């Protein structure tokens, strides 16, 4: 019995060392000391059967996931963009001049699968991979719209907080599109596949 415990301890020690080493060497590895969730506590805790968008445990009745997110965004000093505002900004001539920026806060896999046409990828888990070309654009932009999947998705909120706190983007020009790509698609608006400005559109109204 003692030998098994010692063997388990050896496995645990070697395994832990190798695991941290693998994380350090992996290009997708996590930075142990970074706070990936600078905002308040997790919004999502539960999901119902067949619910594609997780719903919140203890969510006040009559409040949708997007509405709850919007309330929290305002409480954290972030501006919320609804469908109308997002549509206006998307068709604004400043969009073509990069004075209105759309940032997709999801990971690359989701971005490639479909994003708002012309949106820049910004996976806030790996900001160093995106900020190089984005930084001058963020400085000159007049309005920046950040979005993710919508529903309970928190990536847009966390990305906006990261941009505000770590990149010093003024909160006044930051907007979070709470409805996200889910609402955008539901509205029948065009979705671009692959990389930015690939020209491959999924559908349009």
């Amino acid at each position, binding site marked *: 019995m003692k030998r098994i415990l010692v063997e388990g*301890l050896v*496995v645990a020690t070697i395994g832990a060392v190798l695991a941290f080493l693998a994380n350090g060497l992996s290009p*997708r590895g996590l930075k142990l000391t970074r706070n990936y969730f600078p905002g308040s506590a997790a919004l999502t805790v539960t999901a119902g059967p067949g619910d594609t968008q997780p719903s919140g445990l203890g969510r006040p009745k009559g409040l949708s996931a997007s509405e709850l997110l919007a309330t929290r965004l305002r409480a954290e000093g972030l501006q919320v963009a609804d469908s109308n505002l997002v549509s206006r900004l998307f068709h604004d001539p400043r969009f073509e001049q990069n004075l209105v920026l759309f940032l997709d806060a999801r990971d690359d896999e989701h971005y490639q699968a479909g994003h708002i046409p012309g949106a820049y990828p910004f996976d806030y888990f790996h900001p160093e991979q995106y900020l190089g070309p984005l930084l001058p654009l963020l400085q000159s932009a007049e309005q920046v719209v950040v979005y993710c999947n919508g529903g309970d998705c928190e990536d847009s909120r966390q990305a906006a907080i990261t941009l505000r706190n770590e990149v010093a983007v003024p909160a006044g020009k930051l907007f979070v599109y709470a409805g996200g790509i889910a609402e955008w698609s539901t509205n029948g608006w065009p979705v671009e596949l692959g990389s930015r400005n690939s020209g491959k559109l999924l559908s349009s109204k």
Partner: protein
Amino acid sequence: MSETPSSQAPAGAGVIASADNLRASAWASRPALDIAAVLARWLLGILFVYMGLSKALHPDQFLKLVRQYDLVSSPLILNSIAAALPWFEVFCGLLLLTGIAVRGAALMLAAMLVPFTLVVLKRALAISGAQGLPFCAVKFDCGCGSGEVLICHKLLENGLLLVLSLWLLAGQGRKLAARFTLIKPRPRESQPETGKP
């Protein structure tokens, strides 16, 4: 007239013969048990390598899922769990596949499976209560590496994995193992000296 063995057999020989038969059949069934144990070891190994890799390749997604359990508030501890746990599972899975330190690896799997199952159960109960769903209708991504699952299926799966881990922990699965025991017993422990007064 030749005598049949049975006619010459002393009283009680039938009992001895049937005991021998039992022993023989036990030995005959032993290879089947060994094969089953090796298959169990490989199955556990493959499952843990697969589930570990599916998390290790998307550590940010796993981090979000771990965070939802609200177990720790320190970013360092949360990040450490999400960063190391998937690779640790891969490591234990590889040990089982190759048959190195099998009981130590099985002990680690059991030590992980018990608390994981408890926190998943706790969360499922919370969801069931909050949404008024029957317990077995609760479905969510538990961060176990297999996406969204029905809770009853997950609990059954974890129970089975735990039983297999404990079976290996009991010393099964030695066949085709590269080094089943990492720490070999000293000769004095395995072969007690005899003939001394």
